[in-house]
């Protein structure tokens, strides 16, 4: 049963990923991204990370991809890209080589052991209690400061996005003409 779930989800993840990279049309890419994200969410569930699976679906698939689509549609840049040409010399072959190199290196490094760290440093993941409870208690005790910082980060991101995206009134005549 586990294996079936894993294989199906993995296939979805890889197919989605390849789809993102290979689609010429951005909208297609975005939709393929959704496929990947769902696959990841499934894998999270398979590994008992229920909370994260939920967040994954809500935030990524629900918010981020929608945002992508929104931008694509709004700006009208849903044009196909010609994948046959490459202006930067050597970019593609080196990129493929680098990709190969990364994956080869990872597998080579993992020959002996995939995991070598200490166990349960920040608290056990199994045992009694729900996954949400455990994540929450860790988040609000051990990682409280970092958690609070993320709120600052988010505020900054929101403010930054507003500043960047709005038509600046002080930007003067040219912006005004464009609208």
């Amino acid at each position: 049963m586990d294996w079936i779930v894993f294989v199906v989800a993995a296939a979805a993840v890889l197919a989605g990923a390849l789809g993102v990279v290979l689609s010429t049309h951005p909208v297609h890419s975005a939709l393929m991204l959704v496929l990947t994200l769902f696959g990841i969410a499934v894998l999270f569930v398979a590994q008992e990370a229920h909370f994260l699976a939920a967040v994954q679906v809500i935030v990524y698939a629900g918010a981020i991809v929608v945002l992508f689509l929104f931008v694509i549609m709004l700006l009208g840049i849903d044009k196909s890209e010609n994948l046959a040409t490459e202006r930067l010399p050597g970019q593609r072959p080196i990129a493929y080589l680098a990709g190969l190199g990364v994956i080869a290196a990872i597998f080579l490094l993992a020959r002996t052991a995939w995991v070598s760290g200490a166990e349960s440093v920040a608290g056990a993941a199994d045992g009694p209690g729900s996954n949400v409870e455990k994540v929450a208690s860790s988040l609000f005790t051990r990682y409280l400061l970092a958690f609070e910082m993320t709120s600052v980060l988010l505020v900054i991101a929101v403010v930054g996005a507003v500043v960047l995206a709005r038509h600046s009134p002080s930007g003067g005549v040219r912006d005004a003409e464009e609208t």
Partner: protein
Amino acid sequence: MMHAVWLIPALPLAGFLILLATGRKLGDPKAGYLATAMMVGSFIVAVGVFFDLMGMPGEERRFEQDLFSWMAVGGLDVHVGFLVDPLSVTMALFVTGVGALIHLYSVGYMHGDERYPTFFVYLNLFAFSMLMLVLADSFLLTFLGWEGVGACSYFLISFWFERPTAATAGKKAFVVNRVGDFGFMLAMFLIFATFGSLNYVPVLEEAGTLAKGTASAIALLLFVGAVGKSAQLPLYVWLPDAMEGPTPVSALIHAATMVTAGVFLMVRVNPILDMAPGVLTIIATIGCLTAFFAATIACAQNDIKKVLAYSTVSQLGYMFLAVGSGAYIAAIFHMVTHAFFKALLFLGAGSVIHGMHDEQDMKRMGALRKWMPITSGTFIVGWLAIAGVPPFSGFWSKDDILLGAWEKNRLLWLIGLITALMTAYYMSRQVFLVFYGGERWKKADSRTPAEAHGEPDHEPAATVGAAGDHGAHGDFKPHESPGTMAAPLVVLAALAAVAGILKSPLEHWLEPVLAHPHHFTSPSGTKLGLILVTTVAALAGVGIAYLIWMRRRVKEGAVEPEVLRRAWYVDELYQKVVEAPARAFANFSAFFVDAKVIDGTVNGVGALVRAGGSRLRTVQSGFVRNYALAVAVGAVAILAYAVARSA
């Protein structure tokens, strides 16, 4: 009076300061009289000190006055203080005496010059420095005076600085003197390193303990200093050029006082010289050669002052010959008589130049005896004195020197004798050309360029104005000089005539200064013979000159070969051998080594960084994907390293 010795240099210094502050208000001639008064005052004090010193018993004639500490550092302890002994008093007397006369003369001579007060400012400063030089109680304080007179000499030679030749001559004098100072300074260092003191008294008292090598080194280095200041071979070249200065300056600085400082120094350190017999021989040789060499040049000069200048070089050579022979007193004696007759000759020449409206070429003078009786009369006295005609003063002093040379080395004596003959010859030539013969200034300007050699510039032409024009020839009358100029001439003539009587008092007077008083050992018969030979040589010189220049038995060109007229081409030689290579080297250093090599290296490093940067900037393509690729490649590299390590 003895304790007032500080007044001797202080009075000229006061004069210098007062004139510096108020000179322009005092103006012409009050400034001159003030300066002269200071010198006279100084002379009076010197006389007082002299009599005080006379009052002391012979061997104790020494007085030291300490004013204040100048530089006391560790083992070095130099004070500003005076050493009064027969030698320094003798020097002070004739410096102040001759100095006062020349100051007085300058009052008249410089009359009308635009920078009249400035002249006396310099002159008083010079007198101060010269007196510090002779009265100092330490080598270092002497060096203060030594440099001070050098600087004043520079100021005064280039007094008419608008003439490029004058400015250049002043600079040349200073720089050449500095070469000598190099020796003097090293000598002081060595003295300090050896004795731990620079004061005359302890150093000279301990001189007897010196090792021969050290003594020779000190003596030789001091002699280098003396060679520079006293214009000996090979550093004499500045003195003829120094004639660019006003004539009183030539008389005071470049004949009577400053140039004899080297001789004074040699006599002062006689205990050290006595420990270095080899150096004495060198001194005698250099002196003798200089005397001869300069005399040959003097025979062919047409400029009235140049003749006297080379003659001065030659006479200074005599003094060094005396020093080298160990006849120190003869050297001082000749210095004193020389001061009288050479100052007289220079002042006389100045008077002639003044009377001839700034003409200096002897070939365009003649028969001035009629027009300038006082000048010619006194000049003739000076001529006889320098020529060594008995009983004038020069005869006595020169005779002593030749006697010393005879006892030292016969060859030196012979050269000295020939020089004496030549001295008589060129001085007679000068007298005949200037005061006898036809009135050549009346002829039209017939000078050929060759004859115009020397300095075609005319004395105060730049400042006195129209009087110096060439156009003055033919329609003017030479005139006798005013009283302020004539009086010093008369006094000096009297001194030059009779100073011979000082011979034996001076010997006794100076004896305490000497570590090993020198006594002539020759039998009296030899002495008499030498006197006769010398006298004959002098008269022969006069006679030859008479035949050539009065009787005109020989063509002028034959006795004035170009090589002598051009002073053996020494200046040209220096130009080629020293100046040109030095200039090339300096240019090379400044514009190649410094600008190209050293700075080039520095800028090269900068340029390298800059070039490297401009190469490297192409890496920054601006394409985000390129940067990402670089990151990826970097990541792969790091991973590869990890793989390699784990393997």
